[in-house]
Each structure stands twice: as C-alpha cells, then as structure tokens.
C-alpha cells in the first residue's frame, strides 16, 4: 500500500499542488498590492474628498462589501460579456479580488486617517508645512502603522478567498486539487494536502506581518490591539 501511496503523491499530487500554488501566488500578490492601492485611494477620498468624491467612494465601499465575493466574481466573469467586456478567468479573478479587498482596506485606512489627531495637522501647519508635506511626513507615517493590523488581516483573507477563483474556472490550488481528486477519488488526502498548503501560506503571511508590525513600531506611538 505504502509505495502505491507514495507513487500517487509523487506522480499526481505534488506536481499539481506546485502548479496550483504558483497560480494562487500569481493571483494573490497582484490582488494584494492593487487592492491596497484601491483601498488607500477610496479611504483617502472618504476622509479628505469633496462631497461628490466622498459619496462615490462610500457607494463603492457599500456595494463591494455588501455583495458576496462569489457574486462579484460571477458578475465580472459571466455578467460583463453582456457589456462587451470579455475577461479571462485570471483577469476576472484578479479584478474581483482587487475591488473587493480594496473596499475592505479602505475601512481600515479610513479609520487610521481619522484616528490621527487634529492637533498633529495643526502643528504641521504651524511649523510651515505644505498640505503635501503634512500628508507625507505627518499623516501617512502614522496612518500606515495604524492601518497595518487591519490590512494584514485583509491580506490573509485574500489568501483564503483566492480559492474562489476556481469557481470562475481559473485553475489554481483548489482547482488543481479538485481535478486530481476527481480523477483518483482520493478526496480526503488531496484536500487535506491542499488545505495544508493554504495553512502554510496563511501562517507564513501571519509571521511576516507580525515581524513587519514589530519593526515599524515607534516607541511612544504603540498601537494597542483590542
């Protein structure tokens, strides 16, 4: 029995998992970066934008946090061709992840921007800083540190939600697992292995984020998690 199992692992499972994990990483990384950028944009608009911009950003966040991610992916992949937008499964998944996680990121960014005391901005103005300088030297260094725990959680969610790309036929880790499992009927082994890879990703990301938070902490400006 054991050599048989090893053969299965060596010939079927391992190559599929490696292929799938590579696709998953290629889904997660751009979505994480673009999603964060999207969140910074929407979050700043919600806090500092003029009324129309603020209203648009609020609407964006309400819709993209309100719709289940799966529905959003289906809209991008199956719905958009009606409007003449034909996306590949990969593009639809990255677009869906980016816009959805951007909405969640914007919540943390907004909270972080609002938590910076007005006195800080007034003090910056008092010593003659321009608006841009204030943003660059006073607001952002503090806001990014405060938003990091929340945004970090969002990135970890993104790792897990990347599995939904399979539902729009983008064959990543879960999809590769499903293919191997349905052809060998070894569902338990395959999905346990797939789950383990995700656990590895999530645990790794948690460590990196913890390390980053620690490195970025400024003495006297600690942000206490509740």
């Amino acid at each position, binding site marked *: 029995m054991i050599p048989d199992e090893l053969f299965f692992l060596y010939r079927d499972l391992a190559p599929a998992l490696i292929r799938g994990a590579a696709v998953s990483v290629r889904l997660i990384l751009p979505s994480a970066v673009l999603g964060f950028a999207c969140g910074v944009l929407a979050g700043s608009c919600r806090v500092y934008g003029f009324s129309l911009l603020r209203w648009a950003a609020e609407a964006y966040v*309400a*819709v993209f946090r*309100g*719709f*289940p*991610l*799966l*529905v*959003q992916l*289906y*809209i991008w992949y*199956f*719905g*958009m*061709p*009606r*409007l003449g937008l034909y996306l590949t499964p990969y593009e639809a998944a990255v677009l869906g992840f980016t816009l959805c996680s951007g909405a969640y990121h914007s919540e943390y960014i907004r909270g972080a921007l609002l938590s910076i005391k007005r006195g800080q901005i007034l003090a910056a103005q008092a010593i003659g800083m321009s608006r841009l300088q204030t943003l660059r030297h006073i607001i952002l260094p503090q806001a990014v540190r405060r938003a990091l725990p929340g945004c970090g959680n969002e990135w970890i969610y993104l790792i*897990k*939600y*990347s*599995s*939904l790309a*399979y*539902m729009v036929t983008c064959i990543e880790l*879960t999809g590769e*697992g*499903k293919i191997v*499992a349905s052809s060998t009927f070894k*569902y*338990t*082994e*395959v*999905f*346990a292995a*797939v*789950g383990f890879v*995700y*656990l590895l990703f*999530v*645990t790794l990301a948690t460590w990196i984020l913890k390390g980053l938070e620690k490195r970025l902490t400024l003495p006297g400006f600690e942000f206490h998690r*509740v």
Partner: protein
Amino acid sequence: MDFIPVLKEGLPYVFKGTWVTLVVVAGALAVGLSIGLPLAVGTVYGPRWLRRLIDLYVWFFRGVPLLVLLFLFYFGIFPFLGLDLSAFVVAVIVLGCISGAYQSQILRGAILSVPEGQMKAARAVGMSDLQAIGLIILPQALRLAIPGWSNEYAILLKDSAVTYALGVAEIMARAHHVASRTYQHLPIYISAGVLFMGLTYVGTRLLAVLHKKVRIKGYA
C-alpha cells in the same frame, strides 16, 4: 430591456432561496456559538494543554479556505467515515466549525473585557468557578459580544454563497440556474447581490436592536 421579463419570471425562484440561505446561516451561527462558547471559556480559564488544543483548532479552521473545507468534508471525510450527509447538512456543519473558531475569538475578547473584580467578587461570595463563569461572567460577556456577533452574521451570510459549490439550493445556486438557462447573467447576479446586501442590512439592524434591548442599566 429584454431582461425585464426574465427577471419577472426568474427572481421569485431566486428569492425563494432566501429561506435556504437564512437557515444555513442561522444553523451555522448556532453551531458556531455552541462550539465557540466552550472554546472561549477554555482559552481564558482552561489549563495550558487545553489552550494549546483550542489554538490548534482555531488555527486550522481560520487558515483553510471555506471552499477547500467544504470539498474536504463533503467528498472526503464524511464519506470516509461512512456518513451519508446531504450537502445542506455539510454546509451547516462546515460553516459552523469555521464560525466556531471566529466566535471563540470574539467571545474571548468579550470575556476578557469583563472587569477582573467581577470574578473575584463572585468567588468571594462563595460561588464555584463554574457558577461564577455561568452566572456572573457570561451574562455580561455575551451582551458585549453582540456587535462582534453581528459582524459574524454578515460574514457568514456572504460566505454561505460559496455552499453553492456543493449544490445547496440557496440564492446563489438558484441565480446560477436562472442565469445559465436565460443567459441574463448580469441582471440576475446583480439582483442576487442586492438581495444579499438587503439581508445583511436587516440582520445587522435586528442585532443592533437586540443589543439595545438586552442592555442592563449601569453597565455600558
């Protein structure tokens, strides 16, 4: 505007999935609470080995994606154990186990935010540990946990759409049936999304009302 007749005919069918979705979510919340509550009490008051064990549970169910867990349990573990469970039951169990991991963290936070003096006072009037936890700590902690719980409801509601992958006939599955038969994907999925948004809004509102209703005067 050719989609209007399709919506007229298809949406009642999609909306009937609301009941399935709500039952899945309510079931998962209940399973999650009955797992999360003992886990939370265990992490706060339990011995070291129990805390380790609970950490392991939480790590696993928070780290593996829902879709993978659904496949693992529905096609793998339950049939392996000889259990022939319907997709609906598996969906409730899996969502419940995941929610249990998250709820244990919500409740842990709530238990820890009950002032320490409460426990000391309970012990001082001669209550046993269990009495103190059950009669003094938890009634306060559960009230504090309601806002976190309403977040959990919103998350579960949206995640419940994924159970469509097993064939649970909830909103998303029904939307997909209608869409793939009529090729009106865009309007159907947008309607489904709006329905989810509405359900989120109503549910969180109801929990906010509950939060206010069960508040005890003098305890903020």
